């Protein structure tokens, strides 16, 4: 099994896809390594939230995803 990373909203365009499966376990630095430097810079910004299996993390740097977990990367929501 693996960890599924979901790229929500505009992050989908930056990642070149809506989701990606990566090897478990996955921590925050492993995730940043996986997505490439440009996207990693975006994800480090304070406006990007991270949810692990449906719960938003208070401290995204504390991410630790195991086999079968879903990691959702959440950009700021749209107004308008």
């Amino acid at each position, binding site marked *: 099994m693996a960890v599924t990373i*979901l790229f*929500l*909203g*505009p992050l989908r*365009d930056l990642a070149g896809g809506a989701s990606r499966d990566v090897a478990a376990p996955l921590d925050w630095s492993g995730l940043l390594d996986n997505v490439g430097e440009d996207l990693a810079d975006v994800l480090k910004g304070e406006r990007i939230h991270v*949810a692990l*299996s*449906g719960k*938003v993390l208070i401290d995204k740097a504390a991410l630790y995803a195991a086999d079968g977990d*879903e990691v*959702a990367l*959440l*950009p*700021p*929501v*749209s*107004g*308008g």
Partner: protein
Amino acid sequence: MRDIRLVAEPFDPNAEIDALAMATPDAGGIASFVGKVRCGEGVEALELSHYEPLTLPGMEALAASAEARFALDGLVVIHRVGAMEPGENIVLVSAAARHRRDAIEAVDFCMDHLKSAAWFWKRENRAGEWHWIEPRAEDHSDLARWADKSH
């Protein structure tokens, strides 16, 4: 009575408001807001994406918060997701209450939170190109109003 839904197909606000009215015969009034895709600005389509495990629970929590803050007899929140065309309805918030100001303020409160604190991402298609809609400063100042008030 509480009815909170995400829907992937067009919905009929009148039917939803009528159902709320039927369920709340003691209410003195019903306030509603219907938001739709604007016509006439070159927008050919709107797409709303969400994240199911957060979006619907977030809407439920918002409804619970509105019910705690205002004296409501009933509350309906319906939000469309997916692709839609100009003129189609995006969102309905409808609140029934004994007193009108509870109903009107509950609608105002829910709309402010749906606009800037709910897990939705929008993009518009203009002239064949998709453009993501950014957060608006105005929506955040609208939301901040509720933090200042005890009521």
